């Protein structure tokens, strides 16, 4: 079943300027994990914000779960580039935020939040405040906050870009488990091609000015994937292929 369908969308910030995106078509199937890669400034974030209903396309239409998107909907959770946490709330209160905005929080919700926190490796940390956490732990809290509302669609904008390599690898691995566990369809933006290859079922390369989908790659490795996969020669081959495609775009998209 097609969960996300973008048809011929374009975005132009000002009337007389060049469009940022043009003729973008993208479909994502239920349960799929799709990464969007491309050079910086290629409109990746803009596209994701449009899918999330945070921006409206100037042309074309976006359908999520068969309804046209004009504003953010409940089934979608957006994870931002920086771990955006409310400093005056504890870890638990931060995770409960999305529920709190919809209804009165119950003990059941609190138990669920603790379970989700445990799933992202934050057992017994729920009473801490964000300034007491490391960068990796903050990212974990945003993951827990993303999964608490059991989103059908997860949109992630370079969520791990600010992390050190070790933490990043660990979180990539955990993200795969979590998307599986919550069966969330995921669109993931990254500029790290290894990350894209490791996480995704499909990688979309965005390029050109104005940007559109230049190429699509199916990533052939079955899930669940082990951390060891990154050292597999066939995996390295896929990464090389992605790398060469980006390089082939040249500097035009800058």
């Amino acid at each position, binding site marked *: 079943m097609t969960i996300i369908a973008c048809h011929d969308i374009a975005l132009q910030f000002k009337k007389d300027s060049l469009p940022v995106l043009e003729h973008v078509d993208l479909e994502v199937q239920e349960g799929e994990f799709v990464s969007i890669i491309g050079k910086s400034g290629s409109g990746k974030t803009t596209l994701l914000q449009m899918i*999330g209903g*945070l921006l409206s396309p100037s042309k074309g239409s976006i359908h999520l779960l068969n309804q046209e998107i004009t*504003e*953010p*909907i409940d089934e979608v959770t957006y994870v931002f580039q920086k771990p955006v946490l*409310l400093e005056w709330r504890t870890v638990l209160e931060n995770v409960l935020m999305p529920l709190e*905005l919809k209804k009165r929080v119950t003990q059941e919700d609190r138990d669920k939040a603790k379970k989700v926190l445990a799933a992202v490796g934050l057992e017994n940390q729920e009473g801490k405040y964000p300034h007491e956490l490391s960068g990796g732990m903050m990212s974990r809290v945003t993951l827990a906050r993303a999964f608490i509302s059991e989103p059908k669609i997860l949109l992630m904008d370079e969520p791990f870009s600010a992390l050190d390599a070790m933490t990043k690898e660990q979180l990539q691995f955990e993200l795969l488990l979590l998307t599986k566990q919550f069966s969330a369809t995921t669109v993931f933006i990254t500029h790290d091609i290894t990350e894209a290859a490791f996480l995704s079922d499909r990688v979309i390369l965005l390029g050109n000015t104005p940007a559109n989908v230049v190429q699509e790659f199916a990533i052939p490795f079955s899930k669940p994937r082990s951390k060891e996969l990154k050292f597999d020669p066939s995996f390295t081959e896929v990464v090389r292929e992605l790398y060469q495609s980006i390089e082939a775009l040249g500097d035009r998209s800058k």
Partner: protein
Amino acid sequence: MKMTKLYSCLIFIFTLVVWEMVVRVKEISKIILPAPTAIAANLIQHFQSGYFYPHILTTTIEVLGGFFAGAIVGIGLGFLVAQSKTTQEILQPYIIASQAMPKLALAPLLVLWFGFGYTPKIVIVALVCFFPLFESTVTGLSHVSREKLALFRSLKASRSQTLLKLRLPTAMPYIFSGLRVAVVLSVVGAVISEFIGANKGLGALIIASQGMLDTTLMFSVFILLTVKGMILYQSIHWIEVIFFKKYHYSRGDLK
């Protein structure tokens, strides 16, 4: 930490000793500069006789009355103005004008309108307190990061939810710094308004002591006013520490 406190105590004691010595050695008239020991004796005497209490009470009523009135109006209007660009643009010139005008200059007029009772003094104090609170509320409510606003938007938070759960908590430290400034200013406002026309209150006592050439009493009142200001400032600080500490994440020194 303890050493610094010791040093500040030493500076205090050193100043007092030098002061006392200068007054004694130079035989300065107590009308010009009374010795610290004389001031201390004066303070003790007047506290024992109960002379100070009605004056302290009067000034306290003016300060607190004006402070709360000014705080409510300042914070309230701050909320209103921060709500939308339109209200901000409409009200901004008036608010700036109301601040550019020296409020203490209004005191004679207020005495004319409201007489010599509490009202003109409370109004002056409220006017003095208003601006720092208005300013800090508007600044605080608008100082929300774009990322957090985007988060709230993506979570479909309503306007009032964004105000209560995001803007207000962000504004908290700003509002408290406004309160600390305002509370100290409110003592100034009360004293000056008592200068214009009052028969009770610490400001009135300064004028009376001037008339009686009782400089020692005047110094005693200075000390009472300073202590009053410090107590008020510290109370705001402790209220923040006890009830609102979690909103003050950015300042590690708040203990």
